[in-house]
């Protein structure tokens, strides 16, 4: 009788969870299985003929394509640069905001805003209003400093894209660091002060170790999003000049919706999945640990 009550609750629980699980299963398994299958086909939408089984030919073509390696390197380069800029900048910003004497609410509003700007707007605003060598703000600053205007998208397109992306993610990093900083036990700080720790020692031995975990979380979450960076490239460089800013996501897009090479795009897509899974593995472990804590 008593057991029935809890079994009843559990059955109800399962009933309530099922729709979400089924929806996500369908969303994950079905398309992924199709990608796997397509990757083994010679299947081009522009060819009239039917799709033919091609085995590993798509992967072989991928591995023989220098563009593929370039895309992987571009992906990782963008990732590293955007991460360094946003995490480093976010940390400095959070430390400053944490000690700011007044206007903290307004400061937060200013800092968080870029995160809520849609990628296409962020990219276009930066490309045209900020980085334009003819009339951009950065060119104006350069002129003020007596430097020649720099054509970002012609001479350092990857750096330009990375800056745009870092600008969007910097608020996220700053906000999380700030939240973590504010959860630092004030008695711990006071104890350290009584132990004779100066501001530098405090930062080094108390604050930064406290931020290690949030930093790891930020890096992983940003990594997941940055690996599939697309819109910013789509509206600024279109992958160019040449293929200078073609990352893996953009390469797949080109193969899929410009060349309509279903097989090739799927094979490259699987590479992207594997890459993301490596990060996801570590991330799930980290989050799983915090779930039990």
């Amino acid at each position, binding site marked *: *009788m*008593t*057991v029935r*009550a*809890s079994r009843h609750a559990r059955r109800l629980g399962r009933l309530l969870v099922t729709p979400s699980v089924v929806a996500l299963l369908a969303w994950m398994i079905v398309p992924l299985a199709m990608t796997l299958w397509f990757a083994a086909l010679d299947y081009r939408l522009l060819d009239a003929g039917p799709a033919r089984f091609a085995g590993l030919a798509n992967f072989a073509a991928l591995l023989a394509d220098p563009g593929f390696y370039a895309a992987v390197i571009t992906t990782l380069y963008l990732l590293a640069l955007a991460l360094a800029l946003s995490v480093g900048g976010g940390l400095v910003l959070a430390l400053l905001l944490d000690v700011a004497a007044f206007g903290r609410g307004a400061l937060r509003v200013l800092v968080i805003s870029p995160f809520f700007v849609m990628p296409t707007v962020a990219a276009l605003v930066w490309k045209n209003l900020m980085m334009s060598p003819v009339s951009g703000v950065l060119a104006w600053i350069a002129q003020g400093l007596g430097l020649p205007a720099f054509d970002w998208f012609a001479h350092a397109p990857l750096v330009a894209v990375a800056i745009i992306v870092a600008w969007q993610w910097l608020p996220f990093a700053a906000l999380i660091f700030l939240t973590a900083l504010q959860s630092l036990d004030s008695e711990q700080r006071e104890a350290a002060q009584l132990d004779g720790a100066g501001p530098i020692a405090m930062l080094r031995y108390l604050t930064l170790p406290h931020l290690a975990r949030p930093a790891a979380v930020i890096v992983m979450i940003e990594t997941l999003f940055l690996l599939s960076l697309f819109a910013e490239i789509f509206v600024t460089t279109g992958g160019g000049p040449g293929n200078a800013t073609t990352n893996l996501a953009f390469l797949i897009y080109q193969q899929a919706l410009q060349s309509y090479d279903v097989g090739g795009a799927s094979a490259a897509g699987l590479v992207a999945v594997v890459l993301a899974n490596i990060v996801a593995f570590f991330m799930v472990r980290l989050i799983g640990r915090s779930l039990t804590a």
Partner: protein
Amino acid sequence: MSQIELHGITKRFGDHRAVDRIDLAIARGGMTVFVGPSGCGKTTLLRLIAGLEDPDEGRLLIDDEDMTGTAPAQRGLAMVFQSYALYPHMTVRANIGFALKLAGMARPEIDARVERVAAMLHLTPYLDRRPAALSGGQRQRVAIGRAVVREPRAFLFDEPLSNLDAALRGRMRVELRRLQQELGTTAIYVTHDQAEAMTMADRIVVFRDGRIEQAGRPLELYHRPANRFVAGFIGSPAMNFLAGPRAATFGAAEIAIRPEDLTVAAEGWSGTVTVVEHLGAESYVHLVLEDGAPLVLRSRPGEEPANGAKLRVAPVAAKVHRFGSDGLALG
């Protein structure tokens, strides 16, 4: 006369028996206090009685009716939680009246009962506030009012005073006891504080490791502890325990003596005073005997020895509690 009866109640969490085959009868109209160290199963037992947990074995009778699998709401019990568990989105009035509203009582009747209870608990000025705008003591009284208003068969109190400061706790103890006696409602009160148990209880049940160590009236437990655990748990400062040859002279494996049952004597155990606690009405003298055994004795103020003094103490022979090697009281 018993109103709540437990027969062989057992609750397991995994392999651990939090409550282990408990048989207990709870008298009508009295205040029964469950006391014991944390993790002893007293709160789990209370929750089993409330119906918030289901027992793995055993039966629960309330007013001779089998309530073992009955839903909490149908048992006619009201509970006061340690955290008070007030509904934060409701006013004091709505908090107290919520159960009546759910029971489908008419609005004017609800209002009348809520007003009456609020007056009894001095909550009338706060009826339209939310819990967040109340002090700890006021929240506590709202939680009690929520229980009282239902006119339940019994109150269940789960460490209700532990979140209050010491002074308020002392006042609320008395107030709660007075209220319970006025209403004449059966109450079960869980606490880990033996002093609270002693002052409030008609009957104390001492728990350890999911089992009952002893049940009885407060002074019964104080004067005739059934075993070493109860002897050590009830009373503050705690009893002095002595083993070895000193116990052997009393024909026991271990003896226990309350601080007030030790006197300074010409013939006795000799020791050195280490600390003297001056409490005003009485003082407690901490000694170390020659073999290093610590001892506390009560002394009248003004008669305390000085720190470092050497003296001899002896127990009042009739007040020595004797225990066998199994920890049970002898004769």
